Structures are given as C-alpha cells and as structure tokens.
C-alpha cells in the first residue's frame, strides 16, 4: 500500500464532498422518493395493513431507510462514471498517488451522502409520529448495520460505475435493489404472503436487516436476525469488493 493512501483519500474525499454540497439536489432526491412512499403507505394503505404494531410508521421506517440507501448509491455509480468519462480520472491515475484512494474517496462520500439523506428521512418520520425508546447503544447498532449495508451496496455501485457504457447504465443497476424491500418484511409481515413469495421474502437479505432494525427500535431482543443480517452484508461486501477491484484493475491496466 502506498504511504500516501490516507492523505490522498482525504484530499479526494474533500473534492467529492464539494460536489455533494454544490448539488444538494442529489441528497434531496435520494430522500424524497422514500418519504413519498412513507406518506403513501402510512396515510393511504396503512389503514388496511395489519402489522401487529399500534404505530405503522414505526414498522415502516427501517424498510424506507433501506430503499433510500438502495437508490442513493446509484449516485456513486454516476459520479464515478462521470469522472471516468472526463479526463480527470486519467489525470489522477497518471499522478504519483495511491491509486485505490480514487475509489475509496467515492465510497466514503457515499456513506456521508446516504447518512445525510437518512437523517432527513428520520426527521420526517418523527413528524409523522415515529417513536422509539431506543437508547444510544441501540441507535449506534442501527447506524452500524445501515452503514455496513450502505458500504456493501456502494461497492456494487462501484462495479456498475466502472463497467457501465452509459450514464443510464451506471445509474440503472439500482432498480432491482430498490425493489427488494417491497418483497420483504418492510411493508407487511411475511406471514401474509403465498408460499414461494414468502420463502423468497424470508430468505433475502433485506428482511433480516429490516427485522433487526425494527427490533432495535422497539427494544425487543434482536434474536438470530442480526447475525443473518451481518452475514449478508459482509458477504455482499466481500464479493462486491473483489469484483470491483478486478474491474478497477482492468480499467487502469
């Protein structure tokens, strides 16, 4: 590893944070669709959905946050793709910097940008009646698992950004990811779903993460779900990181 890794990463992180704060719309748009969904489900469908919780916003918030992350990481792919289209990527690569810092700067930017969107969403949820007795440790656990999920999906976004042929391709890969929470325990309990759908819903990564975050917010014991959730996140992270690194090596030869 190059001795300048941390210095170079922080310089490049500063650069993409400037991009974020000069186009705040990316943070707003990341937050706005999940907020619209939250309003729709709470005030339109919510009355007809039975979830065994007295407060549907409490039930819904974890899934909404995952949708926000799944759509937010698309911007990372687009930002990386845009860098590669212009000459700036080649300029960085032809300079004596730690080459991996170019990717890490985008990954850290994704964590910060998604974190900001989530803060906005939690704020709106509080206005809509979201209540939790979660203590600081529970909040830290929630933040930790959401950060890990963001990290895992961001490395998928890096693969997309590195290998896409167009901006639309770079951003479009995230649609299936955004859809995953719908076929999970995020909106309705999985017990109500027919056989094969229920099987899929109960065995895909989003459900275990949603259940864990719901339990942490409700101060229930988290059970085995947290280990399943961690295993999924770490597994996706390791595989996506390996593919992203390979794609990067192909790009920079």
């Amino acid at each position: 590893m190059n001795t300048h890794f941390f210095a170079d990463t922080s310089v490049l992180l500063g650069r993409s944070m400037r991009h974020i704060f000069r186009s705040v719309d990316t943070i707003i748009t990341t937050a706005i669709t999940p907020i619209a969904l939250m309003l729709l489900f709470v005030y339109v469908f919510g009355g007809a959905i039975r979830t065994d919780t007295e407060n549907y916003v409490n039930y819904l918030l974890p899934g909404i946050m995952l949708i926000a992350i799944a759509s937010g990481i698309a911007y990372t792919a687009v930002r990386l793709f845009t860098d590669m289209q212009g000459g700036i990527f080649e300029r960085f690569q032809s300079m004596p910097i730690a080459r991996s810092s170019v990717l890490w700067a985008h990954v850290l930017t994704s964590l910060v940008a998604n974190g900001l969107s989530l803060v906005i969403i939690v704020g709106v949820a509080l206005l809509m009646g979201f209540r939790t007795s979660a203590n600081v440790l529970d909040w830290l656990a929630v933040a930790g698992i959401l950060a890990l999920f963001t990290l895992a999906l961001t490395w998928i976004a890096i693969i997309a950004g590195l290998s896409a042929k167009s901006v639309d391709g770079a951003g479009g890969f995230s649609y299936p990811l955004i859809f995953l929470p719908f076929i999970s325990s995020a909106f309705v309990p999985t017990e109500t779903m027919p056989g094969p759908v229920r099987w899929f819903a109960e065995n895909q990564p989003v459900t275990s993460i949603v259940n864990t975050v719901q339990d942490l917010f409700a101060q229930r014991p988290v059970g085995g779900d947290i280990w399943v959730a961690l295993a999924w996140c770490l597994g996706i992270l390791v595989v996506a990181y390996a593919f992203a690194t390979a794609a990067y090596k192909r790009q920079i030869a």
Partner: protein
Amino acid sequence: MTTTAIRVQGIEKSYKDLQVLRGVDFEVASGSIFALLGSNGAGKTTMVKILATLLKADGGQAAVEGFDVATESLQVRQSISLTGQFAAVDEVLTGKENLVLVAKLRHLKNPGQIADELLAQFSLTDAGSRKVATYSGGMRRRLDIAMSLIGDPKVIFLDEPTTGLDPEARLEVWQIVKNLANRGTTVLLTTQYLDEAEQLADRIAVLHEGRIIANGTLQELKRLLPPAKVEYVEKQPSLEDIFLALVGNTGTSEPVKDRS
C-alpha cells in the same frame, strides 16, 4: 551532450483483434519538443497512454527519464504529467480549487500559493473563483495545462492539445508549449494538424498504421520529397489571418508564420 528523456523500443499493443501499435520505436531528447503526427485512429493516444502508465503494452519496452513504464510506474508518474485529449478538469470546482487539488495530490507545500501563481501566469486570476463549468474552451485548456505544470514534472505529454480550440486559443497554447521547452521541460505532443507540428516541434515522427514511418527534424523530412521548385503565387491572406485581424489579436501570442 543531450540526454534521452523518452525511449520507446518495439512497443506493440492490440485491443482484442485490432492491432493498434505494431512495433513503435523513437527517442525524445531532454528539453525538446517532439511531435507525434498521425491521422485519427493512428494510435497516438494509445502510445501516450502507455508512456503515462495508463495502459500496459503487449510487447516492447518504454522508459521515461530512465524508468521503465511497466515495472517502475510510480517513479515514471513522479516524473511526468499528462494533459489528455479531453480537458481533465473538475467542472464543479473553481479554477483555483482544481489547482489546489492537484498540488495537494502531488504532496506539495503551500498549495494555495502555487495555485495563485499559476492562475496569474495563465491569465486566469479573475476567473479563479468561478466554477470551471462557466469557462470557455480556451480557458479550460489553459487551466488543464496549468494543472499539468504543478510540481514541475520533467516530461509533459500533451495529447491533441489544440483539438476543438478556436484560432486564438490555439495560438495561446502554442506559446505555452514553447515557454515550457524554454524552461527545459521535455514535451511530447500528439497532433493531427501538420502546421502545429511544423510550428512547435524540434523533431516530428509520423505514426501511420501502428508504425513510425518517418522521424526527423522538419528539414530532414523535407528532404524526403523531391526538391522544391520555384513557382510564383499571388499571396492571399488566409482565412485565419483575416479572422485574427478582425478580432484584433494584439500579439499576446506570436503571429502565425507566413505559410504561402
């Protein structure tokens, strides 16, 4: 005695079935301007990318400042700077922020001061606090080249530096390149414009279908053709002369040589 800044021997490169470079050889003396001349698709950019450690060659050897581009790429990157075909600037940042960014990535002290000096040198001081997205093509190219000068690299690659620029901006870039060579920087530039190579280069190599088919000074290349015959032609101003006279170019750059 002149030393060699760039040495290229038998470089080959293919993209899948397409053989782009078929054994390229040339040398560039330190402190000189070397033009790689060729039509679109001749392999000029591929050659520059190999020298700038962005691509690996399939065969042959290349060294910059004595460092092998394949095995000593970090040392090569410390000696070079690349100005690619598309201005490698960050549109969202201001001109000054772009310069500071590169100075920091080159781990230099006083990045702000370095940026201010370059802004002044390239007549961009007033535009320094504006986003690059608002710059004209010529300003963008000037900033781009200014970014390449940070850290005083010994060798600068300019890949088609004037493609897409208007005549005035083109003259400005020419002047910058001449100044670079006067400071002792080695410049390798690629171009598809014959007059650009003629104006700037100490040596010119013609890259055609993946090989260097001619390499020499302008005088040497002229001798390849039958001797000049004397004809009497009425000297008409070129459209470029007219354009520059009309827009009142006041000699910030050298006047174009008479090319009748």
